[in-house]
C-alpha cells in the first residue's frame, strides 16, 4: 500500500492498479516513501472529476472575493505547517533545508496569497467603451477557461505546484496536478492544505506517477482545456503536439542557458558573489540559472580568480543542516549527466578551472554518488557545455571585448529564459538588458522571481508567462460582449450590407 495516495474528486484513493513507486532522499539514498503510481485510468478519472466540478460545481460561480478567501486560507495553512513541509521538501528533492524554509514554502504560500489578491482585485467585467456605428457598447468579460492540467518538474516541486494550482483556481478553473516522479511528497501536502481550506471536491486533483501515461493523458484528453508545463524543451514540443488535438491553450516554461554579463565597470565583489549564486544555487538545477558568465576581458583575470577562489568556499554537505550551502543533486543519475558534460567539455578543449569531480571528503553517512563539486570551465560559446543545458553545478566563463559582443554571445542560444547584467552604470546596464532576447533580466542581482512579476521565456524557453497579472490572465478567457443599443432599423449595419428586405 502506498504511503501517499491520489486525490481525485475530493477523496484520497489508491491508484487503480494498486501500484506504487518509491521516492528516495538523495543525500543518503534511503527510501522515504512509497507513492501511489497513477496510470492512464486514474488520470482520466481525475479529468472527469475536474470537468464535472467545473461544469456543474459551485467554484466558478463564487465571486472572486469568495475564492480569494479560500486561497488565503490555503496560504495560512501552509505557513502554519512551514517547518514540517520544509523538511519534506528538502528531504525528498535534495535541496537545502535553508532553501526550503526561505524560498520553497513561503514561496508556495506566497503564490496563493498573490493570486488571491488577483481573484479579488482584477476586474472580471471591463467596460470597453462605445462604438460609433452601429451604436453599441462593448464589454470584455474575463472568465475561467475550464479544466487545467499542470505538470511540474523536480527542482522546485512545491513552488512549481503552487504556480500551477493557485492561478488556476483563483480564476475559477479546476485543476489536475502531476508532480515529477522524483518529488511527489510536498505536492501532497499542498493538496491537503487545499482540502482543509474547503476548496470544493474536484476543483483540485492530484495524480502522482510516470509521465509516459499520465502526462500524455493530461496533455491530450479532449476534456482538458488548458495545459501548463514546466520542464524540458523537447517535452514542451511533445505537449504542444498532444494538445493540438482540440486546440488547448498551452503555457510552457522550458529550458535555459542564461548569460550573466559582467561589464568592466561592475562592482566585482558583488558581481562575483552574484555569478556564483546565479549558477550554483540549488546545484544549478534551476531553469534560469546563469550558467554562462560573460566577463569583460578588461577585468577577466581578476574576476575569474575571485570566482574560483570563492567557489572553493561553498560548503557541500548534509542538506538538512542550516549551515550547508549545497546538498546533493536530485539523484545519482543527475550526477552522471554532469560527469558526461564535464568529459565533453574537456574533450572539446575547455579549460577546467575548478571542481570537475565528486567531493571526496563528505561527512560520513552521505551518499557521495549524488554530490558534485561546483565546477568552473573557461569555455567558448560554441562548445556543447555552453550550448546545452546541463542542469547541474557547471559554470562556463566566456570572455568578451565589447558590450555589443557580450550581447551577441548572450543571444547565441536556442534559449531565452533568464539573464543578468552587472554594472555600476544604470544606463549602460539597461541598454544591454534591452538587447537581450530573454524573458527576465536581472541588473545587479540574480534569481529574483516574485509572484507579482511575469516569468517566462523567449525562443525555445517557452510560451506565455507565469506569475503577475500576466500569469493570472493565462487562466482566463476573454469574452467580448457587443450590445447594440439601437431601437429601430437605422441603427444596424446589416440592412446596408444586404438590403432592407431582410
Amino acid at each position, binding site marked *: 500500500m502506498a504511503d501517499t495516495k491520489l486525490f481525485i474528486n475530493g477523496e484520497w484513493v489508491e491508484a487503480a492498479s494498486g501500484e506504487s513507486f518509491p521516492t528516495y532522499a538523495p543525500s543518503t539514498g534511503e527510501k522515504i516513501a512509497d507513492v501511489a503510481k497513477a496510470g492512464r485510468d486514474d488520470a482520466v478519472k481525475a479529468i472527469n472529476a475536474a470537468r464535472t466540478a467545473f461544469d456543474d460545481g459551485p467554484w466558478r460561480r463564487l465571486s472572486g472575493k469568495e475564492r480569494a478567501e479560500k486561497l488565503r486560507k490555503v496560504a495560512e495553512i501552509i505557513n502554519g505547517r512551514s517547518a514540517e513541509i520544509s523538511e519534506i521538501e528538502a528531504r525528498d528533492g535534495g535541496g537545502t533545508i535553508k532553501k526550503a524554509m526561505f524560498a520553497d514554502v513561503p514561496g508556495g504560500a506566497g503564490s496563493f496569497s498573490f493570486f488571491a489578491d488577483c481573484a479579488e482585485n482584477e476586474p472580471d467585467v471591463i467596460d470597453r467603451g462605445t462604438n460609433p456605428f452601429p451604436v453599441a457598447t462593448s464589454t470584455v468579460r474575463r472568465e475561467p477557461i475550464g479544466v487545467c492540467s499542470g505538470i511540474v518538474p523536480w527542482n522546485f516541486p512545491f513552488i512549481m505546484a503552487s504556480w500551477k494550482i493557485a492561478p488556476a483556481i483563483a480564476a475559477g478553473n479546476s485543476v489536475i496536478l502531476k508532480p515529477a516522479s522524483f518529488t511527489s511528497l510536498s505536492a501532497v501536502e499542498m493538496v491537503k492544505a487545499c482540502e482543509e481550506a474547503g476548496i470544493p471536491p474536484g476543483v483540485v486533483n492530484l495524480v502522482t506517477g510516470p509521465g509516459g501515461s499520465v502526462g500524455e493523458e493530461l496533455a491530450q484528453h479532449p476534456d482538458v482545456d488548458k495545459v501548463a508545463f514546466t520542464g524540458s524543451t523537447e517535452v514542451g514540443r*511533445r505537449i504542444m503536439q498532444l494538445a493540438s488535438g482540440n486546440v488547448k491553450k498551452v503555457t510552457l516554461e522550458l529550458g535555459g542557458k542564461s548569460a550573466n554579463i559582467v561589464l568592466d565597470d561592475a562592482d566585482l565583489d558583488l558581481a562575483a558573489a552574484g555569478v556564483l549564486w546565479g549558477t550554483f544555487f540549488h546545484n544549478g538545477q534551476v531553469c534560469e540559472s546563469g550558467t554562462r558568465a560573460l566577463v569583460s576581458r578588461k577585468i577577466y583575470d581578476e574576476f575569474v580568480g575571485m570566482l574560483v577562489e570563492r567557489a572553493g568556499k561553498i560548503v557541500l554537505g548534509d542538506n538538512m543542516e542550516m549551515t550547508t550551502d549545497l546538498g546533493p543533486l536530485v539523484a545519482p543519475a543527475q550526477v552522471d549527466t554532469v560527469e558526461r558534460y564535464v568529459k565533453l567539455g574537456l574533450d572539446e578543449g575547455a579549460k577546467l578551472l575548478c571542481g570537475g569531480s565528486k567531493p571526496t571528503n563528505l561527512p560520513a553517512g552521505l551518499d557521495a554518488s549524488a554530490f558534485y563539486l561546483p565546477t568552473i570551465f573557461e569555455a567558448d560559446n560554441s562548445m556543447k557545455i555552453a550550448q546545452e543545458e546541463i542542469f547541474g553545478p557547471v559554470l562556463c566563463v566566456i570572455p568578451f571585448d565589447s558590450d555589443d559582443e557580450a550581447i551577441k554571445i548572450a543571444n547565441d542560444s536556442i534559449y531565452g529564459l533568464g539573464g543578468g547584467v552587472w554594472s555600476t552604470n544604470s544606463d549602460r546596464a539597461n541598454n544591454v538588458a534591452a538587447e537581450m532576447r530573454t524573458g527576465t533580466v536581472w541588473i545587479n542581482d540574480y534569481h529574483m522571481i516574485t509572484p507579482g512579476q511575469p516569468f517566462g521565456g523567449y525562443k525555445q524557453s517557452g510560451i506565455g508567462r507565469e506569475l503577475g497579472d500576466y500569469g493570472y490572465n493565462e487562466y482566463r478567457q476573454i469574452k467580448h460582449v457587443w450590445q447594440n443599443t439601437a431601437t429601430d432599423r437605422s441603427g444596424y449595419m446589416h440592412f446596408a450590407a444586404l438590403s432592407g428586405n431582410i
Partner: protein
Amino acid sequence: MKIEGTEAAAQVVERAKRDRRGALVFTIGTGCCESTAPFLYEDFWPGPDHEEVGVVADVPVFAPAYLRALYPANDGVTIDVEEGLMAESMSIETEYGCRFVLREPGGAKAPGQDSEVCAVPDETSALRSRGTQELPEALRRIRMR
C-alpha cells in the same frame, strides 16, 4: 551525428512497440531537467529542422539541426537504458520504471580530477553535529518568491 542503441534499449523499444498502436519515434531533445536526452514518443512529429541520425529496433532517431551541429562527427553516442528510474520526460519507457539515457564512448565517467582549488573545505566535517534548525537572522526578513 550518428546515434546507435544498445541491446537493452532495443528491448525496451520492442516492448513499447507491442504496447502502442501508433508509429514510434525517438527524438533527441534538450533543456531543463532532462538535459540532452532521448525521448521515445508515439505519433510524434519531428520539427522542420530534424533529421534522422540513427535507428534503434527499427525506430528512427531524429535530432534537430543545432544538436547535429554540436555533434558533427560520428561520436559513437549510444542510447542506453537505466533501470529503476522514472524521468518526467513523458517518454514511453517511464511507464516501465526505466529511462533512456545517452552515453558517450568510454562511459559516462569523467577522468577523476581532484582540483585543489575547489576541494570541499574542512568545515564540512563539522557538519555532522545537528545544527540549529532556525533560519539565520539575515534570512528571516527575506521572502524570495
